[in-house]
């Protein structure tokens, strides 16, 4: 996915450098002291729940909102207060914002017309851009004759035709139906590799971010919680918010009894034996911490697993969610503890699955399959 081996990508300063960026509306900070760099050729995602400030951040990159504080450097130049029409970035709007009174070709050529490019060249480049987004031959259509997916392609072509240094995409897939959305993810990644332009995408859909982006910044309440590649974000979340927001997670609260040499021992109420985990970053002894465990990392068995050194707990299956390729078992381990989710691949037909409601089961996990979080 990464284009770093490509000869076209020049190494150098990061394409986007954001430091101490704030946007306040009265007392409310939509974006609060954000520091962020995006490298050339990255497919970068801003991920977070609605209202977390990701769209405001994107609009500040586009120049449609101006920051209250902090700086934005694009390709080394300070662009913090430069208006939208003089920035080398282009945007694909959530509503696509395709001009309804112009043909598809005129829409795509709009930015070039503004720049005073010669007529023939506008036509050639606009048609090229339409081919790129697989809309060749649609040039004379009017936007009201297009489907939602096609309008989005027009918006993409219109932004790409100006060869921006960075392409900004605001929830580009949210208005498409599920099947089309899946297909577009792959297409966007391919498109980004073809054009070699840095993409910054805003999304609230974690699976979208995980499947498309090379790096993801998770935001909450105007603050960046963690910036990491998808796998790192999933396996090593830095906070309970990130762990909970990305995928599904079991959060087991406990008190740190010992922490040394990369090993942590926690006493967790409701679980008889102390929970032992391995991790470089050690929480303070005596503090409260949370063991974050992904449902697919927990083993569920009828018998007590024989291997030594495992964390174990027993419980009763209370609920089963059937998801097709997997089933999620919700296991009650203690009366006042939240149910522990365990997902297990449905390797056999569901009529012959190993566990059913009210079955007593044993859960086990290794000491390296989860993380201990102290915030």
């Amino acid at each position: 996915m990464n284009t770093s081996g490509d000869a076209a990508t020049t190494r150098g300063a990061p394409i986007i450098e954001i430091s101490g960026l704030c946007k306040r509306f009265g007392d409310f900070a939509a974006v609060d002291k954000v520091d962020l760099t995006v490298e050339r050729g990255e497919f970068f995602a801003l991920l977070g729940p609605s209202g977390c400030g990701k769209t405001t951040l994107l609009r500040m990159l586009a120049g449609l909102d101006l920051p209250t504080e902090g700086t934005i450097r694009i390709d080394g130049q300070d662009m913090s207060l430069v208006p939208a029409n003089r920035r080398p970035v282009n945007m694909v709007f959530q509503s696509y914002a395709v001009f309804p009174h112009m043909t598809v070709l005129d829409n795509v050529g709009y930015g070039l017309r503004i720049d005073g490019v010669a007529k023939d060249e506008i036509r050639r480049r606009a048609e090229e851009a339409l081919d790129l987004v697989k809309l060749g031959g649609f040039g004379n259509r009017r936007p009201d004759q297009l489907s939602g997916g096609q309008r989005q392609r027009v918006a993409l072509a219109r932004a790409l035709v100006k060869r921006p240094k960075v392409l900004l995409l605001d929830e580009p897939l949210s208005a498409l139906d599920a099947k089309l959305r899946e297909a577009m993810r792959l297409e966007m990644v391919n498109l980004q590799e073809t054009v070699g332009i840095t993409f910054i995408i805003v999304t609230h859909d974690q699976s979208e971010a995980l499947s498309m982006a090379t790096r993801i910044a998770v935001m909450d309440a105007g603050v960046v919680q963690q910036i990491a590649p998808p796998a790192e974000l999933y396996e090593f979340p830095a906070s309970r918010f990130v762990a909970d927001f990305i995928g599904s997670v079991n959060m087991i609260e406990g008190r740190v009894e010992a922490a040394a040499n990369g090993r942590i021992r926690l006493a967790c109420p409701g679980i008889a034996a102390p929970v032992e985990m391995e991790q470089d970053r050690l929480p303070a002894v005596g503090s409260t911490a949370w063991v974050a465990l992904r449902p697919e990392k927990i083993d569920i068995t009828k018998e007590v697993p024989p291997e030594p050194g495992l964390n174990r707990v027993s419980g009763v299956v209370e609920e089963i969610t059937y998801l097709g390729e997997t089933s999620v078992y919700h296991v009650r381990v203690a009366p006042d503890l939240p149910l522990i989710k365990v997902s297990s691949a449905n390797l056999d037909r569901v009529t012959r699955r190993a566990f059913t409601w009210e079955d007593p089961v044993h859960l086990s996990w290794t000491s390296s399959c989860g993380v201990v979080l102290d915030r």
Partner: protein
Amino acid sequence: MEDWRRGRSAFWLIGLGPTFWLLLFFLVPLAIVWLYSFAELRGLVDMEVTGTLDNYARALDPLYLEVFGKSLAFAGITTAISLVVGFPVALAIVFAPPRWRPVLLLLVILPFWTNLLIRTYALIAVLRVRGFANFTLEWIWEQSNTLLSLLGLGSYQLLGERFEPLELLYNNTAVVIGLVYVHLPFMVLPLYAALEKLDRSLIEAALDLGASQWRAFMTVVVPLSMPGIISGAILVFIPALGSFLTPDLLGGTDSQMIANVIERQFKSANDWPFGAALSFLLMYLTFAALALRAVLARGRGGI
């Protein structure tokens, strides 16, 4: 709608009243006036419908054609000024914070709550020689003179020996000012309706693609608010064309509009047939304007 069509008797019963009203008080009087336009005067008050076209022939006399031309010019200029003044007003209301919008719209339609005659007299009080406009200008003149004296330039009388009040009333300018004042809300309201529906992200997209504010306005805002511009222009142009109170009170001897001539035929000149012919010519002119608009709209893809 389907249910309405099925219950025919109820439909007719409800429709009958308004139909009867329109027939009796709109179409019949209009038909009578139309007949009068083909009549000849008999003596002082009587007239006879003879089918003569003399009234129309007289109405096409250069004297009256000039008045028609002048009326068209007044109405056209009024429409143009209303558009230029009304567009920023409508834009300002649309972009105002949502809680301010109802208040601002109320301010636009507030003049409707006062009688036209009173508003026109108020305008006279503003524009006349000893009026508020001249008072303001005189005040500015005095302040400027004081400032010049302070700068040591008082003795040169750079601004003239004394303040000369401007002749703002009883001329064509006064008529246009009055017409714009009266008709501006009819321009602002349809423009507001059109601009309010405009998706803001379209303007942002234009800016994002490199357009200046002005270019974005001309290439995106104006074309997309064309339905509002056309409605507003019609709503201003047609009543302005038939105005008679404004030119009567604010105009000079040479700023008479066609409606003033018509009024005189019906009242002082007591020549109803000729007045009727002029009225219908004015109506045909209005129809022509509407037809022109329809043709223009079809050429642009039927807005």
